[in-house]
């Protein structure tokens, strides 16, 4: 309990992340200080309204070495003799063909530089993003991990001790943003598009339903999505920006409410935000202010550290390496890996 610092491998770790549509690499010192973080967000998917797995794999393969080399350069190191102590890589969950690119690259660098390799769970990586910006975390902590692929409330008793206390029963929050954005004729990815549109709207214009107010910490977004679509069809006179703002308000409201309820229920000393939807301004603001009234610490990583990145993988890798040792060079990619 209380303020914990966790034991990590010291030295420089290269983190590699290719689980979905960000090709990313970073160099992190002592599991906490990012010396560099390069994120290439693939643009090829936007016209399809979702990630095309084969295109993602091709883009990762095309960019992987360029991204890694940039991360090494930005850290002030030399690719040929980089003084890197270990390489950490996302092994899952994610798209199989995308994960494989990062794992293959990490193995090659482990061999080339004669350094250990450590496989990292992508979700655990997100939970470690807070360590890049906080010297110590007040445990137990309730972390809201919210992205296009995942919506879950995780009770973190300490690093490595996770309990998923709630999750989405249908769409992930980011997915709901994508679907509503598409319906409203906004672009892809939906999160930033809705956010941009919502800026000009009134979040209280429409009261959309908040689902699963049953005392559980689970979410459901498919009903909300349907409600938005039905409302928009019946009320052609209501502006898109009002609908976008009201939808965003509903999502943020339910995310924050359940997160704080969980924090109370489990006696958490802090709440933290993780995952790509964590870049949403309204979510960041509302979670911060409402957590403060609860009297718990609140950790909101920078937008760059919320989105998929290599630094969080290196941070989690430093901890894994110190506590469990390196992975075998024969490690693979595990598309449906669960949080350890």
């Amino acid at each position, binding site marked *: 309990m209380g303020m914990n610092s966790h034991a990590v491998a010291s030295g420089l770790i290269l983190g590699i992340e290719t689980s979905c549509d960000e090709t990313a690499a970073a160099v992190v010192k002592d599991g906490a200080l990012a010396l560099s973080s390069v994120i290439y967000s693939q643009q090829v998917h936007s016209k399809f309204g979702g990630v095309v797995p084969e295109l993602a*794999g*091709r883009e990762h393969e095309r960019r992987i*070495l360029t991204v890694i080399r940039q991360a090494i350069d930005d850290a002030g190191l030399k690719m040929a003799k980089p003084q890197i102590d270990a390489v950490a890589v996302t092994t899952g*969950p994610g798209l199989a063909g995308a994960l494989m690119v990062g794992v293959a*690259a990490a193995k090659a*660098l482990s061999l080339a530089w004669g350094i250990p390799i450590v496989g990292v769970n992508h979700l655990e990586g997100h939970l470690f993003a807070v360590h890049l910006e906080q010297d110590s975390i007040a445990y137990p902590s309730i972390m809201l991990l919210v992205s296009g692929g995942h919506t879950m409330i995780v009770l973190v008793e300490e690093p490595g001790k996770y309990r998923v206390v709630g999750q989405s029963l249908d769409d992930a929050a980011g997915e709901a943003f994508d679907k509503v954005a598409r319906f409203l004729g906004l672009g892809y990815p939906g999160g930033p598009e809705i956010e941009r549109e919502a800026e000009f709207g009134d979040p209280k214009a429409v009261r959309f339903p908040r689902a699963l107010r049953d005392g559980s910490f689970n979410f459901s977004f498919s009903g909300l999505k349907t409600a938005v679509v039905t409302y928009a069809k019946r009320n052609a006179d209501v502006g898109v920006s009002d609908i976008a703002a009201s939808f965003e308000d509903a999502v943020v409201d339910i995310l924050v409410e359940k997160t704080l309820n969980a924090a109370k229920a489990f006696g958490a000393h802090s709440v933290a935000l993780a995952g790509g939807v964590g870049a949403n301004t309204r979510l960041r603001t509302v979670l911060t202010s409402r957590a403060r009234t609860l009297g718990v610490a609140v950790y909101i990583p920078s937008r760059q550290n919320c989105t998929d990145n290599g630094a969080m993988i290196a941070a989690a890798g430093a901890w894994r390496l110190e506590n469990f040792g390196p992975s075998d060079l024969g490690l693979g990619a595990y598309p449906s890996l669960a949080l350890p």
Partner: protein
Amino acid sequence: MILLGIDTATEMTSLGLCKYGTPPAVISFPGPKNQLESIGPIVRQLLDQSGISKSQIGAIALDVGPGLFTGLRVGVSFAKSLAGGLGIPIVPVSSLDIQAYPQGNCSRTIVSLVDARRGEVFYATYRKVPGGGVERLTSYSVASPEEVASEIESMAESVLLVGLGAIKYKDAFSTVSQPLHFAGSASAYPLMPVLFEIAFPLAFSEEFVSPESVEVIYIRDADAKVNFDVRQAFPKDR
């Protein structure tokens, strides 16, 4: 000059290490299962057992396809990163070229075929050149075996077919009226010693590329539609 050879383009994965002028050390195994898992440990094994240190590798000879997409990506991502980490260049060679090359003493037209799955083959046409080896006459293409058969028919000459694409779809070529010859199962896949044979002269004349510039020969476009099953299992993670 020592080359490391990497070939993950087909269902037969091959990794090899070769010092110029000596027989190569080669490890092959049927994939594409376990390709990703095996590739690192096998390269390490090749280095250990041949007593060669990684710093002695001068370049990587790499099969860049066409072939199976996932396997190619594993091999090419591995090769690029290894080359980047070691500071060495890459000699990219096509799978179809590797298959055709050993037929350089055959006076027939050579059609090299790699199984492209989904009832299609990747293929290209070659003929022998004086002094050994072959030259490619057509661009790398993808088509159904039946379409390739009618192309062969229009050539109106004796043809030698090499590669698994020929063996697997032998029946589709039975409609061709001129004499057809099939290379045996020994040339069903690109062979690592042949990759080395093609790559050494290129490496000596410094016809290699920087690892970043290596491009996979895909030929077939990606299925440019969102796979909604996959998307539901793992949609855009932002």
